[in-house]
């Protein structure tokens, strides 16, 4: 099967790769490019563990084809921290003990950042609504929601 040449930007870095038409963005990120921070939980768009942003829009990377990100910018969990340190959301997730097993954490962080980019002061309800596409089986969500509230500075 001939491969498709794709040029895009991942976490700020110009990137090119070859992929098959049938490969999802998730598969290419994980298996071809080594961005294994993006997790696979269901591969059918129902758990959010593979959440990334494409041109700033929150998507499940298992639901789009890798070939679709030509000329687009992709953001993964690996792009959240910088040389200056952790992103405030990452820090708050640690302080609030918002992760147990941690498999859903990259997806929640990417989704939470997309929320705060769109709505810097979300209410608890808005956070719960936005994050309803991300499943966590360990925490019961309490400490995740508290971390996002705290990171947004809207903790009551």
């Amino acid at each position, binding site marked *: 099967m001939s491969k498709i040449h794709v040029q895009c930007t991942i976490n700020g870095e110009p990137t090119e790769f070859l992929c*098959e038409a*049938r*490969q999802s963005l998730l*598969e290419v990120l*994980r*298996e071809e490019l080594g*961005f*294994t*921070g*993006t*997790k696979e*939980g*269901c*591969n*059918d768009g*129902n*758990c959010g*563990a593979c959440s990334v942003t494409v041109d700033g829009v929150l998507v499940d990377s298992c639901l789009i084809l890798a070939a679709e990100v030509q000329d687009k910018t992709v953001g*993964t*969990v*690996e792009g959240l*921290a910088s040389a200056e340190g*952790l992103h405030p959301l*990452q820090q708050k*997730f*640690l302080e609030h*003990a918002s*992760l*147990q*097993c*941690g*498999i*859903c*954490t*990259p997806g929640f*962080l990417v989704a939470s950042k997309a929320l705060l980019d769109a709505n810097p002061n979300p*209410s*608890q*309800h808005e*956070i*719960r609504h936005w*994050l*309803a*596409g*991300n*499943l*966590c*089986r*360990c*925490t*019961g*969500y*309490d*400490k*995740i*929601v*508290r971390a996002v*509230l705290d990171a947004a500075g809207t*903790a*009551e």
Partner: protein
Amino acid sequence: MTDHGETTRKGGEIRNFGTQTYKVVGTRPIRHDGTDKVTGRAVYGGDIRLPGMLYGQILRSPHAHARIQRIDTSRAEALPGVHAVVTAADLPDTTGGRIDLGEGHADTKYMRDNILAGDKVLYRGHAVAGVAAVSLHVAEEALALIDVDYELLEPVIDVETAMKDSAPLLHEGLTTTELNEDTGRKSNIAMHIRHEMGDVQQAFAGAAHVAEAEIRTATVHQGYIEPQNGTASWSEDGQLTIWTSTQGSFTAQKQLATILDIPVSKVRVIPQEIGGGFGGKIPVYVEPVAALLSRKTAHPVKIIMTRADVFESTGPTPGSYVRVKMATDASGKLVASEAHIALEAGAFPGAEIGAAAMCVFSCYDIPHAVVDGYDVVVNKPKSAPYRAPGATQVTWPVEKVMDDLARQLGKDPVAFRLDNAAAEGTRRVDGIVYPRIGGRECLEVARDSDHYQSELSGPYRGRGMAIGYWFNIGLKSAVTASVNADGTVHLVEGSTDIGGTRTSVAMQFAETLGLDAADIYPSVGDTSAIGYTDVTGGSRVTYATGWAAYEAAEDVKRQMIERAAILWESSADQVEYSDGVFKTRDGSKSADFKQLAQKLEDTGGPVVGRATVHPDTGVGGSFAVNIVDVEVDPDTGKVDILRFTVIQDAGKAIHPSYVEGQMQGGSVQGIGWALNEEYAYTEEGRMANSTFLDYRMPTSLDLPMIETIIVEVPNPGHPYGVRGVGEASIAPPPAAVAAAVENATGTQLNVLPLRPDRIINAMEDSIPAAAG
């Protein structure tokens, strides 16, 4: 809709009943592996990539019950890119036997048949063949080219039908073991156990109040977000290395050695980060298939399950049929109880019926009791432990009966439970006499809580409460501790870390040596790097591995004192250590831990502490109490959780945030079990909802904050008073939620999940009664 307006009700409370205050234990440091897990660096089983690695896929049975007449793999093998295909014929054929899995046992023949089906498939999703190919997609294509001829057999998918004499039999060779004796009678009932004490019949005959319940619960899944995975590399010298996400690397090693019929020393299991387990990642599934494929291809092979595979072929928790009857005297003291518990083991025997029988009446002091338990095979995936396995199924019927008795007696539900709560010295029906336990304290704290004392009003709103129990286990753990030249310590433990136990174990080590939590660098060793350690299960890691860390710290302390004695030309008995400082008894010489650590090279070289523990007495059980307020939509039957409080006995909370996390996570799994989750089956025995969309686990939008109150009743059987906290919290939610829904709607419910249609039907049924 669930009200998310109020974000900070009371929570995070700790109520102390005699525990000590410590320097590190009881604080909330950031977990040691935290940064790796929020940056995406942490390596989970699915992230493994090895040179030359092939991708494996597994062909699974589309039928619930069938005889395999023929498997033809030739077309698949001919597909370009396919390296090998394996079937049960590639598994060694050895006789059966039993191996200990730490939390439960397994029969080796059944284990092998579950890895790759022999002559029969026993559930939809049962593995039939494995393929290794150059890519996932090629492997997937190859699955479609494997030809299997099946002779269809009638399936049986519920426990009540499976127990009937007329039911189709799953296993020709299975006969019922009745009260420890093989009856020789062919049946789907693998085992019948009984616990009995006192004179139950006479006690019921003389009772003043009697209540009964008959409850059915659906098959539900642990629902971890990370699918099962395994990567195998079987080298030419016969060494098998496995990278996997497992709750027990040594348990996985033991299973692999047994299934593949090779010595344990030939199997090295390197545990990766694990994306949830809740009991479901104790059994191995794909690892032996990856191993066979690796041996056949001389390449490493990685297999990751799809989500449908996870639902259809890994351990759900048993569906159940339970009858409970209880009675009190005129004053409201429980005098008698009886339970009939039938659990679906799935395709092979081994439901956690023993645990269910231990837990059913565990919260109460009842002088006369009998429990009958049945382990029954059905055409569903082999069940696996799920958080307090067996306890949740039996907690609702008991608590429903307790509410009924409280109503008959005109008593408050919590007060009635307090009147009958088990306490130190109470003898349980299975013979255990309780040491110090915290059930009564949990009920008292619940009674006095802000939530229970608050008013709840409004139409179709109701409150429920319930108490549940899990006994916890001890088992074996090993820890080693290497003192670094800068005074920090590298701690290696054998327990895989699902939820922050590196930190709770390291904190106990730090506390014992007077160091800071941040001075300890904990890691999880593979099976070649640390002594045998049992599974991460049974709420045992913070308890038993924490105890091993305490002992290893004592070992380090002893060795460091000897080094100080060498340095100061004194003797060990003249050196003491407290608050992080070594000093001679005459006070002339002193050095803190870091200063002495710098001198190790001059005083004999490295200091490595070590400890193994196997606590079999002193394991403290844990009680959890829920209070829940719900509102039911009278038009749709949908239930909203308005407020939820969980109160649990932690012994001593080592890291309170992670104790709360266990309480909250278990509660929400229990809420899902109560309201949403079930395996929906077609008449042919096929699971009809094997996606997260259709198997509806709770989302953040479905829930309020989960309020917690940690109750600290120290466990005298542990150096820091720890009780395991991982499991008890899942037992009471279905009972509490059901009671709240019944109170909100004036109905009686008896089947889980409490689906909207069931609630609407119950409300319609109750209208004439309410009108009358």
